[in-house]
């Protein structure tokens, strides 16, 4: 594990270049260019609006600006998570010529998928910042939780990407499995709604390590409240364990990559 990290630090230029390549390719020859980074969050937020309007019609509770802001704040990290996993899973198989022809730490591929998606999120963040005052965000010092939340989110996503990329190299069905799970995961993760909607079933939603992170972002940015700390600690532990386990798993399989891809 320590050696893996040292290897990564030694090859940081490579990680940078591979990420740069991914970004360059994604935005080259596309008409919309950087607008693509906004598309996913906008669609997720619109879908959330539709759901919220429908729910408020049924329950009679009027929809608030903060509800909309909450969806926006959660849509960004969710879009990041989905795109990182989608690209991360196929990052090794998609680079098979590099995996079989050149020797370097392959951990770079899933990690560069995460960084590429992080770049997309970074583009969307200023847009969200401009909109925040109009959707009832409560400015408070609790905003300072955001960097920590994002770091945990990135570690969690990276851990999953590392495991899935290595898995997909040996078993190509994993790619389809990931697609299916990601399509429906939005129902099991409170992106379009709040975890409190589930009432006494909230605990089950919180067991999804993404939930405390998204809820935490909502409370610290929109509601001006600190995140639910015990659950946040739970997310952090799951993230670190996944990342650590993922790297160990990845490295155990790495010697067989070139002949199995």
């Amino acid at each position, binding site marked *: 594990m320590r050696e893996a990290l040292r290897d990564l630090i030694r090859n940081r230029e490579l990680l940078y*270049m591979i990420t740069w*390549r991914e970004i360059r*390719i994604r935005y080259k020859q596309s008409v919309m260019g950087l607008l693509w980074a906004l598309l996913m969050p906008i669609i997720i937020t619109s879908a959330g609006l539709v759901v919220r309007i429908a729910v408020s019609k049924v329950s009679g509770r009027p929809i608030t600006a903060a509800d909309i802001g909450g969806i926006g704040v959660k849509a960004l990290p969710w879009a990041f998570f989905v795109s990182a996993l989608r690209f991360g899973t196929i990052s090794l198989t998609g680079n098979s010529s590099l995996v079989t022809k050149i*020797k370097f730490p392959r951990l770079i591929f899933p990690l560069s998928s995460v960084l590429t998606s992080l770049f997309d999120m970074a583009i969307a963040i200023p847009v969200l910042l401009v909109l925040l005052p109009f959707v009832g965000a409560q400015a408070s010092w609790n905003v300072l939780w955001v960097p920590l939340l994002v770091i945990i989110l990135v570690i969690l996503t990276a851990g999953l990407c590392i495991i899935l990329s290595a898995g997909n190299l*040996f078993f*190509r069905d994993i790619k389809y499995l990931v697609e299916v799970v990601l399509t429906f995961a939005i129902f099991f993760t409170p992106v379009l709604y709040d975890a409190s909607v589930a009432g006494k079933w909230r605990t089950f939603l919180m067991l999804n390590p993404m939930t405390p992170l998204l809820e935490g972002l909502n409370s610290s940015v929109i509601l001006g409240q600190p995140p639910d700390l015990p659950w946040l600690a739970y997310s952090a532990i799951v993230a670190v364990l996944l990342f650590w386990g993922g790297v160990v798993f990845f490295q155990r399989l790495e010697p067989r990559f*070139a*002949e199995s891809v």
Partner: protein
Amino acid sequence: MSDFALRMNHVFKRFRRGQQHDSLRDLIPSLVKRAVRKDRERALAPQEFWVLNDIAFEVKKGETLGIIGHNGAGKSTMLKHLSGIMVPTRGSIEVNGRLSALIEVGAGFHPDLTGRENVYLNGVILGMTRAEVRRKFDEIVDFAGLAEFIDTPVKRYSSGMFARLGFSVAAHLEPDILVIDEVLSVGDFTFQRKGIEKMRAIAKGGATVIFVSHNLQAVAEFCERGILLDRGRIVVDGPTDQVIRRYLDTAVNHEERPARGPVRIVSTRIAGTSGATGTFQAGSKARISVTLEAVAAAERVAVVIQLFNADFYDVFHTSTQRLGHAPLSLEAGQKAECDFEVDLHLGPGTYYIGVYLYRYDTEHEYDHIFPATSFVMTTDRDSRGAANLYPVVARYDARPIIPGPQALPALPATNRSPA
């Protein structure tokens, strides 16, 4: 300080024929199997074979090693082990110094990126820092000869341009050990020459070079030592010309041919002044020896030898008859030896020898074999083509400019009327 650059300690590698488990439903059985027995030690399963079988050798610092063998002999797999892309099933590999492997030119090039972007990307992928690439950028582009296309996406490049750029990046790595797999076969002749020269310069600079190629002439000229691989084993390890000789001989089998007539060719050998060899310096003498054996009585047997170049163009042929030697008549079971002596004034490349036996009066063919054997020509001066005429530049100097008006020769008057 040890003086070895690279060492393979009894390396074994097991491969599977056919499909590996590629979907989840095959995972469980294979995991159970793996848990039950230790993978490294077990014997081969029916579907498995050794792609590398007990490979052991050491390469000294500054040595140039050529690896040859037929397709599927395990050459590329061996390079992938040397460069650390693959890990052996058994045995170990020691590398002493910075190793760069060029298994495929332009691996890592992205078609949508420009030449410039790909040079940076590929340079870093192959182990340079960005600062290093920046410093060598002009040199790399110059060497590839692509200055005017450097900002064009490489998907618009011809395959030769693509290969040139790929090779150029790798050639500027300054490694201690350079491993190259058959990358010069792409690109035109001029670039192949340039590539060999570049590799020679790298070797002169003290680097160890390991070179895999089907281009025997390149191996002969460039490598001082050779290794012949066959089905995962080292067949010979020694001076390049002897290794090439063995390789060329494995391609031809005189024994396994059915008898076609009363006389058959038993063996064909070519030797230089100092014994059997596979490579000849232009202008050297060679002896081509043919052994024939009569299965039944055969009359008036004449021997023809033919020489073809790598394009199977007929470079030269002659016969005992045309050289004024009377044909032999053989009794059943009798053997005969026929030696031709030739001066090899040939250009560089691989040549194939064909042998024909015929009855000189009726021109009835007794036996023929092609290629009976082959050899490689090398040259110390850069001349090309089928023949080597030993060129020297006898004179090449500029004339002084004579000042003052110079009368141009008058144009012949035309009497053509305007159309």
